[in-house]
């Protein structure tokens, strides 16, 4: 039975949802479901979970470029078939996990993984794990920067932290190629954000046939877009100084592109977190308003991140997340210690700006 384009509704199946997860659990996982006692990280990338039953499951975590070919996935499946009874899992940060139910199976598994440079082991504990990221130039229409390429450049540079647990706490890095922030970089220890800096230009000759002008006008949260007649045609005009480069106009109307090789840049944000451990979840903060977008290796971005990471690693207390450290020493110290210039653009002027201004005489001298 196959799809019949002439009769699309015939035997159609819908709304069945995903496969049930139980089908996919390795036996030791299924058996000890909900009965785990504790875990140990045996070495970077290798976890052991102990169950009440006494069972143990050994997990080997390996990196993956989230952008993966069918062939590469098959390579992973081959390993899973050989060592893991045909089971495999991905983590919520796009690493791959191979599980075995006995310590004796660990070394053979690791050996096969180590044989393939596409599967480096690591990503556990107080280190740098995989970067959550987005599409970039590989698939999206609104990016200011690429995604996979920058991630590769940054992780090449930070690779030793992927394979060691030598930081004060886990450092989560994320990348989003535009401020839609599909990478949810708004709560990361270090975030790489693609940002447009030129207001949309308007394709006056075609806009009225491509877009609903009122929708385009209404799309702008700052009211920067106004109706206009250009060369006798209905169009819109953009008040550049009122534009905050959100890109919402382009989302609503393709005749208003923002992207521009010179204008598009990398914003570095730091200090966010998600876990409720010790301190509450926090947003990342803009600390470098713009670095140039410089493929293929974005050296300015790579260097900026390494610098911040190293200063943090050297100065923070054990268990202290990057943002907790910055708050403890004060952001003025953060800028000083990281040797970052402070730019007026990092002062908030959006809706909750007041709450970010310093309303005390307490501060540290630089």
């Amino acid at each position, binding site marked *: 039975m196959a799809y019949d384009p002439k009769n699309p509704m015939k035997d159609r199946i819908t709304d069945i949802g995903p496969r049930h997860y139980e089908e996919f659990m390795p036996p030791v996982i299924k058996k000890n479901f909900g009965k785990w006692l504790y875990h140990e990280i045996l070495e970077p990338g290798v976890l052991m979970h102990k169950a009440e039953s006494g069972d143990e499951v050994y997990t080997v975590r390996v990196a993956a470029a989230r952008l993966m070919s069918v062939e590469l996935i098959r390579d992973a499946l081959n390993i899973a078939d050989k060592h893991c009874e045909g089971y495999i899992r991905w983590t919520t940060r796009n690493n791959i996990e191979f599980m075995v139910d006995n310590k004796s199976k660990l070394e053979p598994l690791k050996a096969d993984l180590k044989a393939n440079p596409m599967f480096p082991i690591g990503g556990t504990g107080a280190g740098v794990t995989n970067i959550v990221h987005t599409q970039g130039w590989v698939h999206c229409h609104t990016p200011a920067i690429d995604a996979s390429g920058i991630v590769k450049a940054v992780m090449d540079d930070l690779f030793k932290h992927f394979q060691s647990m030598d930081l004060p706490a886990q450092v989560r890095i994320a990348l989003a190629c535009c401020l839609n922030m599909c990478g949810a970089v*708004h709560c990361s220890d270090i975030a790489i954000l693609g940002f447009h800096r030129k207001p949309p230009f308007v394709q006056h000759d075609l806009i009225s046939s491509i877009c609903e002008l009122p929708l385009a006008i209404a799309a702008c949260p700052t009211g920067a877009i106004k109706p206009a007649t250009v060369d006798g045609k209905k169009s819109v005009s953009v008040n550049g100084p009122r534009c905050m480069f959100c890109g919402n106009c382009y989302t609503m109307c393709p005749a208003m592109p923002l992207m521009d090789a010179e204008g598009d840049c990398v914003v570095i944000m730091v200090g966010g977190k998600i876990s409720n451990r010790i301190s509450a979840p926090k947003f990342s903060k803009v600390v470098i308003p713009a670095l140039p977008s410089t493929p293929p290796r974005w050296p300015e971005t790579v260097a900026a991140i390494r610098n911040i990471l190293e200063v943090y690693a050297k100065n923070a207390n054990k268990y202290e997340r990057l943002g907790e450290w910055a708050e403890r020493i004060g952001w003025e110290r953060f800028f000083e210690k990281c040797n970052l210039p402070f730019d007026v653009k990092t002062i908030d002027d959006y809706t909750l700006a007041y709450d970010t201004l310093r309303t005390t005489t307490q501060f540290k001298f630089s």
Partner: protein
Amino acid sequence: MAKFETPLLDDLEKGPWPSFVTDIKRQAKTKPELEDLLGQLELSYKDKETHWKHGGIVGVFGYGGGVIGRYSDMPEKFPGVAHFHTVRVNQPSGLYYSSAYLRQIMEMWERRGSGLTNMHGSTGDMVLLGTQTDQLEEIFWELTHDMNTDLGGSGGNLRTPSCCLGMSRCEYACIDAQNICHDMTQTYQDELHRPAFPYKFKIKVSGCPNDCVAAIARSDFAIIGTWRDDIRIDQAAVQGYVKGELTPNAGAHSGRDWGKFDIVKEVINLCPTKCMSWDGNALKIDNKECTRCMHCINVMPRALRPGVEKGCSILCGAKAPILEGQRLATLIVPFMKMEPPYDECKELLNKVLDWWMEHGKNRERIGELIGRVGMREFLKAAELKAIPQMVKEPRSNPYIFWEEADVPGGWERDLAAFRKKHPL
């Protein structure tokens, strides 16, 4: 030989991190459209601009989401990616797979798509990257008929719910995150596939406050495991940590010499509520003051465990900055028991969705709606009582919108009587 020179991309074949370029190049040998993809990507690396056009609306019949349309802006030059749509396949909860299942998907995707994927998309879907419009129905047919699998969400609808691995392999899990995630996905199939919402809506489930699926930051409806009784203490194991027999934080910090474990410095003093004490012999926790931040448990997993009266906290309204600024989810239910079929939770969610559908403006996330009309309206609709746990602190401005019913005598005034008392 490659169809296009890719000197810039080639540079990304170096270095220890897995190279997507190397990977794609290999796959391109059997999937020539990937040559075009590399060519276009190389051009983007040169131009520093994307070469994808504004997506059009494509999809499978009867579904409002699950496919992202994508077209090259240089189709002549890169015909293999002239159409390059994404198919979002709903992942199984917890991201476990059998190789049999994945091989099936891979085989199909090699045949009907580009052979390139994202494992996984940021929302959690298995993302199959790059196919033609005419393949969509075929793919859907095979997915549903042959793989017993459905599409995920996109557009103004419920997005594919996701979760951490929860009870399957984590001792901290206070709820069965996977089961909840799966159950919600099944219950809300209609909402997932047939957009009737003002905008997207995301559900994420984490088993405990460590929040390994980032629910609090990335979901409109975040279900996060917690407990309401006492942390379970194994005093002998505490001694084990203190004596150095057990490695703190399960070894997560073992890459550096942090010195001997110091329970006072590393646990007692870092407890955010300062509700712990250590007299050299026994660890005491004033559980009433504990806010279940997980720190002490994370540091001493063999000695401490969450309590036994487990359930979840529910938080609502996280989102990225577009348009009204980013929000974290805010607490709406401090504690709810979570047993299948999760009726209480679903009843609440239904009320929340109904209210949002009625009042939300186009492209207004629920968090933004709460921001616009206030918690009061939200709580009324959700039939929740206001409690101090919902706020960090009470309001500091006095601008209360009193309702007529709450004011003695209502709002009607007798002008004549007033003017008799207060001549103009």
